C-alpha cells in the first residue's frame, strides 16, 4: 500500500491509527523536561513548555536532543549529539549519533516540516523533499524550479541512494528510525542522521508548534525562533481565554463518513483541544485516545443531524459536492444552515493546502478562524485565514 505524504496526514488527521495513550514508561530514560543550566551555545537555550515528544539539554558548546521513540506500544528515547562543526566529541556519549551544527542542508519528508523550517527562517536550506508536488512556501517552490531541491520520496519509495549521495545535514522523517522499512537503518548506517519529527502525535496545538524548537536547535537559531514562538504562544493563549470562556457553545462535527464509517477525532487529539479552546461543544470530547474514533455513521447521525457547525468536511469544495457524495448529508442542520467550513482557503494553484504546512506553526491563526466561525461577535471582524465557508 502506498501512502502518500499528504494522504498520510489525512489519515493521521481524519485518522485510522489510534495512537496509544502518550506516556513514557521508561522512567529511567525519561528526558528531562527541565533544561540543564550552563552557559549554552552562542544561540542561547530554550525551554520546552508544551511538547511532550522531545527535550533538549544544553551543555557548554554542545546540545543533546532527546526524542521519545514509539514503536507499537513500546516507548524509549532516542538521543542525538548536536555538536558544532569541528568540535571534538565529548566523552560519555558512546554510540550517540552526531549532528554537526548549524545544519546547512535539510531533507524533509512532510508538509509540516516545511512549515516548521520556514518559520525558523531556514527554508532555503531544504535540499530534499518527500514530494515536490505539494508545496506552498514560495522560497522552496523557487528552489524547486531552479532544480536545487531534489525529490527523495517517502516511506517505501524513499530513494536511499539519492539521499546517501546528497548527504543532508539531517533528514526529518515522520516515523521512527526502526519503523516499517529497513531503509531507515541503511540510511543511519550511511551516516545520514534521521530525526523523527512526531509533531503530529502531540495532543495540543502549541505542543505541535513547539517542535519548531528542534529545528532551531539544529540550525543554532534559538535566539531568533524563541521570541517568534513566544508571540505565537501569547496570542494563542489570549484567544483561548476568549474562546473557552464564551457563553453558548455551539455543537460541532468533524470530517465526513465514507461507506458507513466516520472517523471522529478522539478526546486527546489536538483538534479536540482546538475546538475546546474555540468554545465549541464536541460530543466526543471525553473519549480516550489521541488519534481518532472509528464510528458507525448511525452512531454519529443523531449528533450530525442537529450539530450547529460542520468543520473539515472532507475533500469537497461546495455543498453541491457534499450532497453528490451522499444525499443524506443534505439533511444535516449545518448543511441547511450553510455552516460548513473547510480548512482549504489557502490551497494554491497546484492543489497544495497551506493548512498542513504553515498551519502547524500557526495554531493561533487556526484558533482565531474557529472562534470567528463559532462566535462571530467575540473577535473583531476579519476574513478567515485557513478556513472557508462552503456554499
Amino acid at each position, binding site marked *: 500500500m502506498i501512502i502518500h505524504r499528504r494522504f498520510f496526514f489525512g489519515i493521521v488527521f481524519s485518522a485510522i491509527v489510534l495512537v496509544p495513550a502518550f506516556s513514557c514508561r521508561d522512567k529511567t530514560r525519561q528526558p528531562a523536561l527541565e533544561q540543564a543550566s550552563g552557559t549554552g551555545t552562542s544561540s542561547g537555550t530554550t525551554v520546552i513548555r508544551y511538547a511532550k515528544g522531545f527535550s533538549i539539554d544544553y551543555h557548554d558548546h554542545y546540545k543533546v536532543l532527546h526524542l521519545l521513540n514509539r514503536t507499537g506500544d513500546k516507548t524509549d528515547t532516542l538521543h542525538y549529539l548536536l555538536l558544532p562543526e569541528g568540535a571534538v566529541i565529548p566523552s560519555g556519549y558512546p554510540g550517540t549519533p552526531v549532528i554537526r551544527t548549524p545544519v546547512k542542508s535539510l531533507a524533509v519528508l512532510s508538509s509540516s516540516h516545511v512549515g516548521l523550517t520556514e518559520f525558523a527562517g531556514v527554508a532555503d536550506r531544504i535540499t530534499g523533499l518527500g514530494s515536490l508536488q505539494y508545496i506552498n512556501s514560495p522560497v522552496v517552490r523557487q528552489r524547486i524550479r531552479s532544480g536545487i531541491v531534489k525529490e527523495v520520496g517517502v516511506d517505501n519509495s524513499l530513494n536511499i541512494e539519492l539521499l546517501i549521495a546528497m548527504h543532508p545535514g539531517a533528514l526529518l522523517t515522520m516515523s521512527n528510525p526502526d519503523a516499517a522499512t529497513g531503509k531507515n537503518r541503511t540510511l543511519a548506517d550511511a551516516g545520514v542522521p534521521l530525526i523523527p519529527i512526531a509533531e503530529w502525535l502531540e495532543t495540543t496545538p502549541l505542543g505541535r508548534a513547539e517542535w519548531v524548537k528542534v529545528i532551531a536547535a539544529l540550525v543554532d537559531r534559538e535566539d531568533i525562533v524563541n521570541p517568534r514562538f513566544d508571540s505565537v504562544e501569547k496570542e494563542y493563549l489570549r484567544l483561548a481565554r476568549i474562546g473557552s470562556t464564551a457563553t453558548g457553545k455551539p455543537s460541532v462535527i468533524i470530517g465526513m463518513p465514507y461507506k458507513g*464509517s466516520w472517523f471522529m477525532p478522539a478526546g486527546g487529539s489536538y483538534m479536540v483541544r482546538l475546538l475546546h479552546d474555540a468554545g465549541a461543544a464536541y460530543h466526543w470530547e471525553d473519549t480516550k485516545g489521541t488519534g481518532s474514533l472509528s464510528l*458507525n455513521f*448511525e*452512531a454519529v447521525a*443523531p449528533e450530525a443531524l442537529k450539530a450547529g457547525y460542520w468543520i473539515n468536511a472532507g475533500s469537497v469544495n461546495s455543498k453541491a459536492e457534499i450532497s453528490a457524495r451522499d444525499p443524506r448529508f443534505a439533511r444535516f442542520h449545518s448543511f441547511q444552515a450553510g455552516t460548513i467550513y473547510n480548512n482549504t482557503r489557502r490551497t494554491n494553484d497546484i492543489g497544495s493546502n497551506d493548512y498542513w504546512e504553515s498551519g502547524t506553526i500557526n495554531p493561533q491563526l487556526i484558533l482565531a478562524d474557529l472562534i470567528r466561525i463559532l462566535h462571530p461577535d467575540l473577535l473583531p471582524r476579519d476574513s478567515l485565514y485557513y478556513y472557508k465557508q462552503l456554499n
Partner: protein
Amino acid sequence: MSGIYPKIRLIGLLLLLLLVFLLDIAVGPVKIPLGDVFRILFSFPSGDSTWQFIVQQIRLPKACTAVLAGCGLSVSGLQMQTLFRNPLADPSVLGITSGSSLGVATVMLAGGNVATLYAIRELGLSGSWLITAAACLGAGIVMLLVLVLSARLRDNVMMLIIGIMIGSVTLSIISIWQYFSAPELVKDYLLWTFGSLGGVTNSQLPILGSVIGAGVIMAWLSSKMLDALLLGENYARSMGLNPQRARLMIICSSSLLAGGITAFCGPIGFVGIAVPHITRQLFRASSHRVLVPACCLTGTLLLLLCDLLSQLPASQTILPINIITALIGAPVVITLLLRQKNINAY
C-alpha cells in the same frame, strides 16, 4: 428435492430471513424502541425525526444492500463453481473481483485529473451508473480472459491458477496506478476496498437492485445450461445445448452480479465461495433451478447475519464486513464438509 421436509426447511429459512432482516433494522448503535422502528418502517408518524432518519436513511438501505449483495455474490459464486467445475471457484479467487476493482479504479483515479473527477462528481446518480458499468465491464473482461485461456488447458486446477495469476496482474496494475495518483483519490479508493454495505443510499438502491435483479434472472433462466455443464460438455451437446452460448450467458450474468456489487460495496470476499457449499448441503440439491433461488436465500441470510454482527453490540464502532463474512462463513463450510466428507457435485 421432494417430500415435506425440504418444504418445511424452506419455510423455516424464509421465516428466519424475515426475522433477521427485521432484527438488522431494529438493532444498531442508537437505541430505538422496537415499536418506533415498526411505526417508522410502515410509515406511521413517529415522534423523533432523528430515529426516522436513522431507520429510513441508514438502516433500511443497508439491510436492502445486504439482501442484494447476498443474492448476487452467492449466485455468481454458484455459477462460477459450475462453469469451472471447481468447488474453489468464486469471483474473488478467479480475479473477477479484481477485474471490477480495476474498472472502479479506472473511473475513480481517472488519470488523476481534477477535471475528470469533478465531472464524475457532478454526474451524481449517473456517476454511480458509470462506476457500475466500469466494474461490470472489468469483471467481464477478466472472466472472458480466464475462460479463453482455460479453454486451451481443459484442466480445472490450471484454470484456477490462471485465474489467480490474472487477478494478481490486475491488482498490480491498480497498484501502479495508485502509486502515481493524487493522494485524495487514492484515499477514496482505498476506503472503498475495505468493503462496506453502508455506502449505498436510497437513491442508488434502484440501480443496484436492477443490476442484481437482471443478473439473478439471467442465472435462473440459464439453470438448465448450468445443470448440463455440470455433467460435462459432451453431455450438454447431446442435450442440444450450445456450450459456447451457455458460457457467454453465464459470464454476462456473473459479471453483472460481481461487478454491480463490487462497484457499490467494494470487494466482499467469501460469500461467493461459502454460500453455494452451504446451500448444496442444506438443500441436498444439485439442480440449479433449486440452487439459484436457494443460494439467494442462504446468501441473504448469511450477509444479514454478518451485518448484524459487524456492529459490535453496545458499541459505536463498526467492523469491516469482510472480516465477519470469513469469520462466520469458514467454520460453517468446514462443518458441513466434514459431515459429508466428499464433494460429489463435481
